[in-house]
């Protein structure tokens, strides 16, 4: 009897051992490998997005005086002012809002490249290490034609530079900002066409950082708004914003009465994650600098989202820039964009 029990125990033990070693253990190891693999892949994706956010190039077309010897075609200069290398792939030449030409930067028949003063022989796209300067001579376009174009430089991370606004292929002669304008209208100015909106799920913004550059917004959705603001203070002071900076909006409701809604400023990290605006870590805008302000919160200092109207119509918006200049309270109200809800 004892022998049979032993036999049964041995057989059962063998079966359990078979199950453990041939199925359960490999499955556990497989899950573990997959989890490690997924983590590695996520890191690649996050690193890429982080690098996208850190790419910083100063891009402009050179004036005729800056190019020696003089040429009969436009010259673009890109300086890597960021902390990571940037590889440039293409030039976008845009005429009357249409993409007229898209030129590969490895093609030296159409362009000349000089990296830190040394001519590149072509065949490979140029990589700008931090601090490097690239000059691109666009041989395919004459100076006369260049007046009709604006341009972008595209990096291999899928970023168009300049990130904000566009640059003409021939710089305009007068770029001076009329200083007395800021004495009359106030120290902050909007980059009007940088207005964009984001979908906000209560945690992060999509698509970050570009958003939807549109003045038409879907009804009933939870959104955030973004716009670049420039400091043109006539006394060249730094502006510090507080949590009461917000965008406010009147819109047509169901009756004749106009309804009001507010979207307060929030903080956003490099991945588009939203957090309540922290007055202890305020957004500051130095003189002649720009900052992207994002408005999403229903209340000051929170990250709770706000909805746009659930029925179609038009919204009339204002921007209230609130904070301190030189430690003194400051508030400026700027008439802002009109929005259509569809």
């Amino acid at each position: 009897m004892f022998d049979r029990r032993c036999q049964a125990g041995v057989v059962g033990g063998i079966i359990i051992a078979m199950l453990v070693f041939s199925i359960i253990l490999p499955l556990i190891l497989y899950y573990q490998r997959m989890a490690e693999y997924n983590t590695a892949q996520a890191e690649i994706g996050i690193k890429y997005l982080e690098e996208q956010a850190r790419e910083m190039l100063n891009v402009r077309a050179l004036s005729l005086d800056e190019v020696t010897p003089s040429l009969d075609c436009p010259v673009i200069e890109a300086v890597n002012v960021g902390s990571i290398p940037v590889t440039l792939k293409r030039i976008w030449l845009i005429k009357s809002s249409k993409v007229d030409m898209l030129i590969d930067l490895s093609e030296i028949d159409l362009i000349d490249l000089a990296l830190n003063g040394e001519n590149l022989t072509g065949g490979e796209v140029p990589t700008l290490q931090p601090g490097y300067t690239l000059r691109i001579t666009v041989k395919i376009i004459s100076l006369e034609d260049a007046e009709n174009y604006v341009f972008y430089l595209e990096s291999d991370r899928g970023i168009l530079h300049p990130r904000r606004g566009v640059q003409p292929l021939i710089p305009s002669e007068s770029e001076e900002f009329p200083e007395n304008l800021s004495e009359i209208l106030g120290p902050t100015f909007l980059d009007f066409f940088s207005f964009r909106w984001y979908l906000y799920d209560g945690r992060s913004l999509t698509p970050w950082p570009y958003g939807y550059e549109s003045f038409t917004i879907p009804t009933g959705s939870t959104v955030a708004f973004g716009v670049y603001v420039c400091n043109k203070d006539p006394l060249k002071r730094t502006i510090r914003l507080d949590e009461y900076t917000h965008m406010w909006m009147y819109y047509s409701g169901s009756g004749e009465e106009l309804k009001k809604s507010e979207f307060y400023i929030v903080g956003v990290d490099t991945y588009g994650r939203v957090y309540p605006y922290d007055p202890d870590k305020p957004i500051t805008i130095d003189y002649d600098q720009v900052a992207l302000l994002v408005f999403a919160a229903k209340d000051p200092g929170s990250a709770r989202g706000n909805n746009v109207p659930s029925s179609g119509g038009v919204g009339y918006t204002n921007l209230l820039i609130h904070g301190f200049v030189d430690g003194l309270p400051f508030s400026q109200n700027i008439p802002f964009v009109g929005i259509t809800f569809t």
Partner: protein
Amino acid sequence: MMFKVRSKLGQAEPVSIVILTGVVLAIALAVYGYFASQAAIASYRQRVQAEIAKLKFNIVVSDLYSNGTDRYILIKRLDTSMARITFSLVLGEFYGGTLLVYNTLTDMAQVYVLTYSGGLYTDDQISAAQSIPLDRLYTSIDTPLYSGYLRGRGLTYIPVYYQEAVEKPGARGCDILLHIKFNSPITGSGYPMLIVIEPIGDEYYIVDVYQLPKVSTL
């Protein structure tokens, strides 16, 4: 004592042992087979989920430039130097986190891929190469795409585009640059949605969705 017990069992003992052993082995095999099949199913589902997760992390869609009717979109895969990218253009929207697809956009937009020749990129029109059955299109491993609106329009297939993406030396990953040209305003419900699809086995999985703004006028 042992002798007495053995003598009581007599000649039937070896037969009963063989039968008992056979039954135990059969049960053991059945149990083993059940667990093995469950493990195979679980590992397949895990492999599919891992593949979808990998693609979700490695596909980056960037809306580079637009002017109302034209949109230039870069679809980048970070994980490889050469890949086939499968995508479709539909009319839809997210409702409570669920992707609703109302219609295809084949008649309302032309899709071009920008191809490189002699330094300049030119528009190369591509057409939907194939249609895939809606009942095999999934938003994740357990969730088929809600296809009620499409079936209401008599559609049981969704047209998809395939494009080979090849990267030049010295850069990361591979990408395709698309030019989507809308030839008709989009009115009513829904937004143009670019959906990136990956075939795994005989099923298709939506790994990324990029919502585009409406085109209100031409």
